[in-house]
């Protein structure tokens, strides 16, 4: 499929080099949130979950060398570019863009409202250098930078696992990172903004979930739904000791719902709730 000559496609293409150390363009394609399934099948749902606007995909070929693929997404906002980046944080830091990882021949980074993936179909020392080089060219070409979602700055810093902060919108992605329930008991959708953070070490790891709803009434309804399904034994106290001896606590403040899962103590859970509450509106 040839690239459609859309403005969005042209803008994204302008960030990607046409050639890199012998690799030249084999194919360009442009997709949007409806057509992405033609390119990556069901995996397209991941990108739709972050409200993707458009994708420019460029394949590079060089005689006798593995194919390189650049997938550059315009996510519409820096929050969603950051969120998509946090979907998969495994890998080493590649010092590219505003955050990056490299693993298995794949370099991913975010910058401004863009998320980029540069991938070698076969990883060799040469393709690794090419992947890094192309990614840095794209990074240089994208002049804008963006802010992380405001919810991220509200997280309590003590014990925060900074490489395990996820930002997303919907129930499916929540369960991807941290299973809560099959039913959408937190009433998440594409209009909710969610940050999920980890605290403590691997053996004693608690999770802090902060959800911003579009209004107070929605937040109230979501908290009510969550408490009824997940912690009916809390009996309105908003905190309960669970079967494994840890604590789960939930509270609403304005249009935020704040939940602490697997806290090692009641005090820890309550401190985390209070920390977030004191930062609302700041």
């Amino acid at each position, binding site marked *: 499929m040839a690239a459609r000559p859309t403005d969005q496609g042209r803008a994204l293409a302008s960030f990607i080099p046409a050639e890199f150390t012998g690799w030249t363009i084999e194919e360009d394609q442009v997709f949007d949130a409806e057509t992405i399934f033609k390119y990556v099948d069901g995996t397209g749902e*991941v990108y739709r979950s972050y409200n993707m606007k458009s994708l420019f995909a460029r394949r590079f070929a060089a005689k006798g060398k593995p194919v390189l693929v650049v*997938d550059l997404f315009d996510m519409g906002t820096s929050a969603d570019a950051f969120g998509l980046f946090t979907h998969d944080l495994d890998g080493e830091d590649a010092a590219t863009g505003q955050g990056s990882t490299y693993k298995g021949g794949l370099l991913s980074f975010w910058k401004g409202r863009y998320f980029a993936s540069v991938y070698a179909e076969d990883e060799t020392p040469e393709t690794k250098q090419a992947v890094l080089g192309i990614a840095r060219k794209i990074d240089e070409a994208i002049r804008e930078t963006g802010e992380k979602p405001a919810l991220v700055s509200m997280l309590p810093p003590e014990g925060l696992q900074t490489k395990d902060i996820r930002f997303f919108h919907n129930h499916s992605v929540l369960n991807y990172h941290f299973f*809560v329930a099959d039913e959408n008991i937190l009433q998440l959708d594409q209009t909710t903004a969610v940050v999920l953070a980890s605290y403590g070490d691997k053996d004693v790891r608690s999770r802090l979930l902060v959800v911003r709803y579009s209004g107070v009434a929605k937040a109230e309804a979501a908290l009510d739904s969550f408490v009824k399904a*997940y912690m009916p034994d809390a009996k309105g106290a908003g905190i309960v000791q669970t079967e494994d001896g840890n604590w789960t606590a939930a509270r609403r403040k304005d249009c935020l719902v704040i939940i602490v899962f697997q806290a090692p103590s009641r005090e820890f859970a309550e401190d985390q709730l209070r920390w977030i509450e004191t930062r609302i509106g700041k």
Partner: protein
Amino acid sequence: MKNKAMTRRDFIKAASVAPLAGAFIPALKGQPTQAAAEKVKVVLIRDKDALDAFGTPNADVIQRMLDEAVTTLLGEKDPVKAWKTIIRPEDTVGIKTNTWKYIPTTTQVEQAIMRRVLDAGVPEGRISIDDRGVLTNPIFKNATAFVNARPARAHHWSGMGSLIKNYIMFTANPSAWHGDTCADLAKIWDLPHVKGRTRLNVLVMLTPLFHAIGPQNYSKEYVWEYKGLIVSRDPVAADATGLRVIEARRREFFGEDKPMQPTPHHIFLADTRHHLGVSGEDRIELVKLGWTDGVLI
């Protein structure tokens, strides 16, 4: 690994896939129950020569593996006689393959199936191999029998690219089945043009992908040469067995229990919610044949 108490998240997760676990939490009552039944047979066959030095399937070995698996599964010594118990000469047969560019079903597996369908007496003009064109392919539209063959692989949205999922191309709008990370894919098997037609399922485990990364959902780093086929009449049992292999490989590779993300719950829900087959290890009679090095389960 230290013992951990079962938490309400564990209960909720179990309740979504296991018939009785919901009884532990009042809010989750009403889960379906399923009476104990006979075990479902699944054959796992491996051969160290299934792939050549370049990773290409060896056609003769693949044919031999398929034959041995099918005869064992169906309890018939001769492969042609075995196939004749599931395919009739008057059948019109669609071989549902998978053409994903990085790990396809492979021509060798397709042709091994094709050969035995021909041997069962079906004329070539009434057999077709297809993936994305099944809704318009005249053979598939008139099919009385399907053979379902696809590779097992980690998948960013459904957890695992499975035999159950392979039938998504029988729907006009595949993305309509992506809800709750593909939870209800098994319902596709109830569609009028699909229901009751599948005679055999072949989960290709020659080079499974055990971890998915990036938009391409693929990296060679997370592929290994398992050199196996999993064969069953029950797609759910075959998928559940393939999943066990992939999860074991993940533990081996990552050095820790690293569950698939997202959870491939469509496999378990195909059992507990949709009753397409069985997923519990205790309900599956697994017959392992051939090469045992690195079998993992």
